[in-house]
């Protein structure tokens, strides 16, 4: 376990060459560094230029910016050193400060300190991680909005509204002898309105997750209809081995394709033939089934020779027929395509975006919801729909239980309950220096 009261140092800009690199130092009291650097006074929020002796014959001209705690990112004293963007210089600077009593920071330690000192909420800490890992503008905007606290505020609002609904139930249970408003119909209406509002929010969050983590797509269908070819076309890459022998694809192959502004993670599955005795192929079938339960979208590919093939999926599905150039009659239930002739692909891409049901305002109101959040949000949704289905005044205590759980789950989005979760995951997934 890390020490949380010593002085830590790390390079906060990406390693590599550039105009400027930034080294960040945080500790409860950095006055000692001021003395060692022969700066009389480190003044809050003031940048100074200072030459630092890095070894016997080398001095580096740096810009030092001091932030006095608690008004800093970590809540401690923070010193930021801007130097020339050369990894060697950065290393020398860090070395010399380690000699002065600093310790190299571990992953996420700066954020951890910010969290511990009340500068960042758990959600904000997660948002920082997202912000840094953003790969497109939408992600960037979404995580910035989360970081600004908008997501948290939204969750708080829901918790507040739930509380009002719960008060009605609890007072009807605990004070049934008193004269309190007993308007069950009105309550049910409020509950349904709330559930609707919440579902809209979930759709937004799903969209956010698509932005942040990509859309998981499973390409499935009978063997040798061109699933791997399709994947290659979508990715513009020669990812899977394409041959004419049926069952060539044994392992699950994953590639990402960018369509619109969205990252699609395509999974090419083994052609599902349940009859196969080959253990390797069997394993492939098992993996494919697992993928089907965890994906966001299914693309079922058949060809003109296997039109009767049709699977049941509990996910949004796009059905496509390959080799349509070999047949005269079109299949109206499917997108007709020819991978060989490169037809039908644009139609498929549009459909893929369409199926996600993305709000028109994508990137305007969305937050950087992580799968940790969407998982919890989905559980809340289930609680609400169970409560809405209880249509009797005799079940007040069960509705109350659903709403209590819903409220707890929302609370867990703001801050996880168990100790492992609380300390473990997010801060260690951070890079050094954040």
């Amino acid at each position, binding site marked *: 376990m890390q020490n949380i009261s010593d002085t830590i140092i790390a390079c906060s800009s990406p390693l590599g060459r550039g105009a400027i690199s930034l080294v960040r130092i945080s500790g409860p009291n950095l006055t000692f560094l001021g003395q060692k650097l022969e700066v009389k006074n480190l003044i809050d929020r003031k940048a100074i230029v200072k030459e630092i002796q890095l070894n016997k014959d080398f001095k580096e001209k740096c810009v030092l910016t001091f932030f006095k705690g608690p008004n800093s990112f970590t809540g401690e004293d923070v010193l930021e050193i801007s130097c020339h963007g050369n990894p060697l210089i950065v290393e020398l600077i860090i070395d010399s400060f380690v000699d002065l009593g600093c310790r190299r920071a571990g992953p996420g330690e700066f954020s951890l300190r910010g*969290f511990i000192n009340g500068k960042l909420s758990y959600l904000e800490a997660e948002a920082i991680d997202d912000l840094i890992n953003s790969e497109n503008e939408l992600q960037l905007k979404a995580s910035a909005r989360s970081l600004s606290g908008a997501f948290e505020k939204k969750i708080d609002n829901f918790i507040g509204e739930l509380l009002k609904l719960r008060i009605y139930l609890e007072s009807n249970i605990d004070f049934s002898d008193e004269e309190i408003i007993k308007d069950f119909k009105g309550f049910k209406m409020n509950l349904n309105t709330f559930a609707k509002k919440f579902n809209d929010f979930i759709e937004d969050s799903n969209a956010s997750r698509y932005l942040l983590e990509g859309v998981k797509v499973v390409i499935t269908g009978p063997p040798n209809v061109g699933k791997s070819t399709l994947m290659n076309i979508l990715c513009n890459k020669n990812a899977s081995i394409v041959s004419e022998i049926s069952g060539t694809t044994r392992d699950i192959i994953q590639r990402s394709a960018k369509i619109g502004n969205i990252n699609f993670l395509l999974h090419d599955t083994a052609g599902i033939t349940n009859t196969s005795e080959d253990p390797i192929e069997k394993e492939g079938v098992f993996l494919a089934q697992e993928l089907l339960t965890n994906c966001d979208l299914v693309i079922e590919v058949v060809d003109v020779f296997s039109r009767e093939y049709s699977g049941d999926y509990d996910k949004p599905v796009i059905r496509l027929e390959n080799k349509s150039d070999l047949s005269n009659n079109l299949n109206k239930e499917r997108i007709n395509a020819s991978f060989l002739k490169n037809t039908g692909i644009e139609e498929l891409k549009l459909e893929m975006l369409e199926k996600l049901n993305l709000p028109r305002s994508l990137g305007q109101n969305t937050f950087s919801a992580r799968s940790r959040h969407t998982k919890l949000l989905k559980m809340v949704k289930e609680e609400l729909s169970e409560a809405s289905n209880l249509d009797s*005044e005799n*079940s007040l*205590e069960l509705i109350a*239980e659903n709403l209590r*759980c819903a409220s707890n789950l929302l609370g867990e989005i*703001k801050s996880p309950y168990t100790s492992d979760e*609380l300390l473990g995951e997010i801060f260690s997934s951070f890079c050094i220096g954040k």
Partner: protein
Amino acid sequence: MDKFEIIIIGGGHAGVEAAFACARLNKKSCLITNSLSDIGKMSCNPAIGGIGKSHLVKEIDAMGGLMGIAADFAGIHFRVLNASKGAAVRATRSQSDRVLYSNKVKDIINSEHLLTVVNCEVSEVLLSNDEAHGVKLTNGETIHSKKVILTAGTFLNGKLFTGEEEQEGGRIGDKPSKKLADFLLSLDLKSGRLKTGTPPRIAARTVNWAVTKEQPSDFPRPTMSFVTNDRVHPKQMSCYITRTNTRTHEIIMEGIEKSPMFSGKIEGLGPRYCPSIEDKIHRFSDKDSHQIFIEPEGLTSKEIYPNGISTSMPKQIQQRMVNSIQGFEEAVITKYGYAVEYDFFDPRELNHTLETKKIKNLYFAGQINGTTGYEEAAAQGLVAGINASLTIDEKQPWVPKREESYIGVLIDDLVTLGTKEPYRMFTSRAEHRLLLREDNADQRLSPIAKKLGLINDKRWMNFNKKLEDIEKEKERLKNFKLSPYQINKLHKKSKAKRQTGVSAFELLKRPEITYEDLCEILNISPEKSEIALDVTTNQKYSGYIQRQKKEIKKVKKNENALIPEQIDFNQIEGLSNESKQKLSLVKPKTLAHAQRIPGLTPAAISLLLVHIKKKSLQKDNVA
């Protein structure tokens, strides 16, 4: 005087339950009271039970306590509240004949040969090195013991208020325990003031019953105890309902500045949910009428208790106010209403065993810990009595868990949250409400009671018989597959969806299908109602119960994360002073307990975690 193992100070509901528990655990104990006749006295309204409270009574009963039995022997009116709602929130409420109740309690207490009752006043607890070892009486005598349980109720620095009159006392007609209060204050325990009140009592013959609404006892008549039946109930009486009106409210508003609550004479905070009538009218000024339950005080009593108009207004205003109410036009007040203000000690200075953290072998139970209500007091008495006894035998204490009982919720709330107003139990305080039903209190607690030696073999056998009957009934219903004809009938009767190939047991899960409907359609004889209720409820709740069990498991993980006993919370780096104070006061023993402390942020919890992990790493390195 003789040497005792345990001394119990106070003969109220906490005191008698504590003493009875000690006696059942074979401890030679001594109950000291100011007044022998007041043992088991109901000083507020003559009712036992109610929502959340009846759950406590049933649990006390399952642990072998006396409250439920006394309530059944004295109960002159029984009603099931929330009867139309699910089993978890149904609650039994009883009106007692005050005299019968107190006599039954005395009978039970007096039949315990290991228990001595002494009529004396205690002036201080004998201490050496922060350990209690007996008490000193006001007559100068001392009595020694290994443990002392203090259940002083509202008697510590009690002050009674009626209008501008003010006198000292814990209950009308009784002296307060000033010496003991002064002694306790010298111990430097955190204390505060609370208040409670009672309504005026009215001569029954002066009530015009014809204009009130009658509310008879329920039938079949419920019981409070698992070991009694309705044949022990005395003759039943009805309650009646009337209401205040705008005239009543005018009279009160005219004199409101004379109420000690508003004139600033009373500093203590009263219970929000049991407010005085002047408080209700002041706070809910838009309501022009409030309900009053006219409760009988007993079979032979000539008084009634008008529940809902607790007041400390001047006598003359009380009289006018009462006479303005329908049915009370000619009513004669026999005792005026009053407010009591008293000291209580911050329960956060107690362990879950109810032993004080500062003074070993000293236990606090009842209203002194900031609670209100007989049931809450009795539950604490039980816990203190059991734990004082167990530690003498060097056994593990009994810390009731939140997921196991309302007693667990009560204790944990008190020692974790403390209280600012008199603490009353509600079902909404129990997060595992669906598991903690009145009817399954015996299933939840009998095994514990048996293990600790609190219930006898006969009772244990009867309990096991009940479990067997439940299993048999489940099997019986599992073996019934409904015929298409029966399914049709069920569909007609309860609009249930037609479903084939399902057992009667499975069908019970559906909210619209009742046990009675099933029995009728299957043409089978119903089981005893307690068996039927248990089987039905567990089926109806099954999905929810599974989820609650999952939640409990999750909490358990943090419940098992122990905070080292010797931890110094002030040493935790980065922690705010406020968090340090909160932790130091409550001294949580587990991570889950710390998480329940209000106002401790996730960041503070993380710091605590980091600190513990670091310390344990250091220890590992040394080892």
